[in-house]
């Protein structure tokens, strides 16, 4: 194994956080009372209305990648506190709390795995870790993932979930991660590399305005919130009622900004088929 690459097996030990605890739960989409186990077995999608609950990175990996094939890279990257940021609590403290809560070191996980036997470089952001926002670590991990995909001529798949965009707590360094990852993707594209971007609920701000929008092919899960500015900010600025379905996957499809909306159960298969089409056999 290459030196410096963290290549331990994927344990998938993270607790799924997005589906509320308890035997029964209520669907955010249709308000139906659901048997929790049934939702989990259904990839965290509501069996009644197809509402897609947010899933943790571990669950996402399990859903997409062939069993036991995921190898995580750079898992030991940890955020610093370059600004000495302190809003209502110091940033390092906030980080520690998030790490304990999620079992992750940071909002992004990168590595390689096989999707239906096809080797891919995979990047994922967990919308549960400081809203999936991008600071130095997320930017660095995704950049390394893109560079490695270029080097090994592998397809790159990034599944984004980020309500936070560029992380405020790391200030200008977060903003610059947008340029850093985009530059690496520029090289990947120039080298003829494939990049498929998968947008999940929510993908906003600096994440939407960088890597998430730079796929050769852009897929989205149904009814995900995707956009540049948050709906609240827009509502305050324009002072009119926002149209129904504004900034959803369906809205983006209608306006021509994504290629397909893919149901979670079809995502793995769709990725495999798409990669197969553009990879020389």
């Amino acid at each position, binding site marked *: 194994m*290459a*030196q*410096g*690459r963290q290549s331990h097996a994927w344990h998938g030990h993270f607790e799924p956080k997005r589906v509320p605890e308890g035997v029964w739960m209520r669907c955010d989409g249709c308000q139906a009372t659901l048997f929790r186990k049934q939702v989990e077995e259904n990839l965290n999608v509501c069996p009644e209305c197809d509402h897609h609950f947010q899933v943790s990175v571990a669950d996402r990996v399990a859903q997409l990648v062939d069993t036991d094939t995921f190898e995580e890279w750079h898992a*030991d*990257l*940890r955020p*610093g*506190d*370059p*600004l*000495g*940021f302190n*809003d*209502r609590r110091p940033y*390092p403290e906030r980080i*520690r709390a998030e*790490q304990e809560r999620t079992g992750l070191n940071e909002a992004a996980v990168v590595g390689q795995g096989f999707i239906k036997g096809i080797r891919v470089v995979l990047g994922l952001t967990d919308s549960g870790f400081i809203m999936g926002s991008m600071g*130095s670590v997320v*930017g*660095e991990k995704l*950049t390394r993932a893109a560079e*490695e995909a*270029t*080097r090994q001529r592998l397809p790159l798949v990034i599944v984004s979930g980020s309500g936070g965009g*560029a*992380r*405020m707590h*790391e*200030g*200008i*360094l977060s*903003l*610059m*991660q*947008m*340029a*850093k990852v*985009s*530059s*690496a*993707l*520029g*090289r990947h594209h120039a080298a003829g590399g494939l990049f498929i971007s998968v947008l999940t609920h929510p993908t906003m701000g*600096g994440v939407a*305005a960088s*890597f*998430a*929008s*730079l796929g050769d092919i852009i897929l989205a899960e149904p009814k995900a919130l*995707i*956009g*540049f*500015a948050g709906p609240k*900010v*827009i509502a305050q*600025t*324009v002072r009119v009622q926002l149209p129904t379905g504004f900034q959803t996957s369906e*809205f983006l499809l209608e*306006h021509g900004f994504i290629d397909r909306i893919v149901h979670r159960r079809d995502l793995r298969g769709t990725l495999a088929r798409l990669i197969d089409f553009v990879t020389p056999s």
Partner: protein
Amino acid sequence: MSTAGDNRRLSFDAPIHEMEARLGEMQAEYARSRAGGDASAVAEQIRRLRRELAGLKQTIYANLEAWQQVQVARHVERPQSREYIDLVFDEFIELHGDRAVGDDGAIVTGLARLDEHKIMFVGHQKGRNLSERTACNFGMPHPEGYRKAILKMQTAEKFGLPIVTFIDTPGAYPGIAAEERGQALVIAENLLKMSMLKTPIISVVIGEGGSGGALGIGVADRLAMLEHAYYSVITPEGCATILWKSSEHWKKAAEALRMTSRDLLGFGIIDEVVPEPLGGAHRDHREAASTLKSFLLRALRELVEIPRDVVLQQRYEKYRRIGVFFEGVDAAAAEVLEAVVGSASATETTAATLAPADQQRPTRPPIAAVDVDPTPHGVDSRAGALETAPTRD
């Protein structure tokens, strides 16, 4: 008021205005005294007052707090792209439109001449009076603005013209139409395309560097800020609303975000701070323009000498190494290191001075050890270098 407006008269400028008023009175008195005979005493007083005024401006403007810098950066009389176009460039032919949706007034583009250099200019424009501001949408571009910008930049690349961009925006416009026309996508594409443009790019934050809306025309080989400009991941008001739950706390947010030119120089994000006239660029447009012009000329002369593929490689490396994080240390060690490094700085120096004491130092993708060539080494050699190189200078 609760937020940083664009007040014509800044509260912390009051002593300056007072002294200027006194100076005015004295000059009137001087005129009267001269008519009546000897005015040398008054003239001496005036000279003294002028020296005091310069000293006062120096004192106030050398010690501005972050929120005060924001107010200076937003000052209505601060020169904008169009003033600088008139004062800096010898010739300007404006080019309009994105060839798809329209012509966005928030971004001005065109061919310009600067001494011996022919360049493509791209810059935000906020507007001076209400009608101009409305036409420019207060410097907040829609997607067509970013598309227009990149189109002109691609034209520049085709004909080998260097690109100069001036950043001055509160942010890309957060509106319904902007979202419908793909605000996030156009900014993302600009970042990628600018990183690949085979021509030198110089960017200067002349006023407000509002987040993605600024970066969308700001991926550059040389990045500078005017002394009192700010550049931030989010506006202080936006940050305060989210983290402090009220925009009332914008002054605190401005401080916390470390968004002044000095902060960014310290982080190694910008290459240079372009000094402003005493008391801010709004007090002397000509002098501000002249300093800016010297910077541009220097940067241009430097960059045009470098082969284009080297420019491109260096641009990649410039962004590649931005970031502060720990690698190869466990949580406890990271905590100790964090305590040592504290919030001191994110510069290379901090890491270097720390390194001899402890090999498990915080790493930024270091300049010296990075191998960004897309060769078979890349990640491996970098990681190796991090583990084996105890010091770096």
